[in-house]
């Protein structure tokens, strides 16, 4: 596959050219944190970041997503008929996404694109987007991507992998979509073998820096019910205040709620992020709540990611080790500790 080199000075020119035909999104510094935003100009792009505070999942699954609009006007012959609102179709390039965050899209794909149902909103956004990932040379102390099956230079969910090498970036196409993007780039030169070698070395070094706080393999064979009934949940849940920070910052948490909002005689049907941490998420119309207790909700989040997902899809876990929940949990519930307990509770075959 095509590999090109772009010097740091030339990168803005490349971005400018991409912006002519695509919507280009990238990490932008906002105050003290970074966030993925549509770039207004090439210089907004700031690649000197460890990772964004919010995961880029809202690029595919916006927190508020208006799906349909309808009229309730009595004299409107089409009153009450849902009309689909336009979907994302414009081509987008996401520059500088971390390999872990891109991997998260792939993990969430199994939920939105299945044999029986293909979510048109998710799929449209996914298809319209080219992911240019930036390999991670300075993982945070809270990162554990390699423990959950991805890594700082994992290109498996990317279209292009960018590696910062001396003087610039090596851009390696991973998919055909990526190759098409890199072709005919006057700002670039073709990469030399030495560059590719240097990039590989950087990737290996980076992977070594990532901590591996637990081993997940034993979890696969552990019966769900045993983990479900484990005693340690009581301890894990104590500190939890049931806010939605972990789920809202998580790149793989996909749960949502559908709500109609009516103003006057018009309405909109919205898809909104929801979270298993909130009691309302599971409240039935009857008033019964199968997860009325904090313990049940806390357990659900970890079990979903590390057990149910794995068992259901034979893949995963549904965690990419970005460490956001570790850094931002207001009461320091550390997923690394919890998963270590989950796997330690396994009776592992020696």
């Amino acid at each position, binding site marked *: 596959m095509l590999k090109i080199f772009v010097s740091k000075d030339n990168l803005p020119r490349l971005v400018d050219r991409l912006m002519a035909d695509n919507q280009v999104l990238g990490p932008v510094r906002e105050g003290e944190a970074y966030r993925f935003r549509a770039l207004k100009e090439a210089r907004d792009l700031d690649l000197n970041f460890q990772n964004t505070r919010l995961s880029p999942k809202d690029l595919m699954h916006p927190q*508020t997503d*208006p799906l349909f*609009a309808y*009229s309730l006007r009595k004299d409107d012959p089409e009153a009450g008929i849902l009309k689909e609102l336009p979907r994302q179709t414009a081509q987008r390039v996401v520059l500088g996404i971390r390999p872990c965050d891109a991997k998260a899209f792939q993990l969430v794909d199994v939920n939105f694109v299945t044999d029986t149902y293909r979510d048109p909103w998710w799929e449209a956004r996914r298809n319209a987007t080219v992911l240019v990932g930036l390999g991670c040379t300075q993982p945070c102390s809270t990162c554990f991507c390699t423990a959950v099956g991805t890594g700082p230079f994992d290109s498996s969910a990317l279209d292009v992998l960018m590696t910062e090498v001396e003087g610039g970036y090596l851009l390696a196409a991973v998919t055909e979509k990526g190759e098409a993007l890199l072709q005919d780039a006057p700002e670039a030169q073709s990469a030399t073998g030495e560059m590719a070698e240097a990039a590989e070395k950087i990737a290996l070094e980076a992977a070594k820096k990532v901590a591996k706080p637990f081993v997940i393999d034993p979890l696969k064979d552990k019966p769900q019910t045993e983990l479900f009934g484990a005693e340690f949940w009581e301890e894990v849940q104590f500190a939890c205040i049931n806010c939605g920070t972990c789920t809202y910052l998580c790149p793989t948490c996909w749960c949502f709620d559908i709500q109609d909002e009516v*103003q*006057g*005689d*018009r309405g*909109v049907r919205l898809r909104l992020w929801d979270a298993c941490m909130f009691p309302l998420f599971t409240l039935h119309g009857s008033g019964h709540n199968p997860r009325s207790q904090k313990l049940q909700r806390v357990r659900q989040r970890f079990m979903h990611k590390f057990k149910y997902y794995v068992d259901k899809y034979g893949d995963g876990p549904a965690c990419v080790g970005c460490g956001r929940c570790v850094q931002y949990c207001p009461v320091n519930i550390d997923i690394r500790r919890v998963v270590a307990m989950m796997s330690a509770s396994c009776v592992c075959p020696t």
Partner: protein
Amino acid sequence: MSEWEPKIVAFLCNWCSYGAADLAGVSRLQYPANIRVIRVPCSGRINPKFILAALRHGADGVWVSGCHPGDCHYIEGNYYARRKFALLKSLLEHTGIDPRRLHFSWISSAEASKFAQVAREVVETVRAAGPSRHFIKTLPQGEAAWGQATAELQAEVV
């Protein structure tokens, strides 16, 4: 916007201010028709949610009226209400809501002329403040249907 008329939601307590409105009616007192009355059992029943909901649904002003202190049908409901209103009004103004949009009064059921008088005052003050837009929701995604609905709601003149 020359045709614009302010819309005011008035929460009137059942025992005093609502009676005053009634008396104003049977006494043929004139007051502007910009007021939509919602009858509540007591001014103590007013929850800040009601006031925000009124603004969210397009009210340009909110007026809450109850019995004079000491005259509450429930003995002390309006005393509690008075404390709540003091803090609420101050908080809303502090966060940037025009003080001209929020009004409180004590009007007994015998004070029909005070009712008409305060109604005029409230309407004129809100009129001077102009249409309230701060709490009218428009989805940032700017879907045509939604924006249109809001515009129509605002333009609606009764």
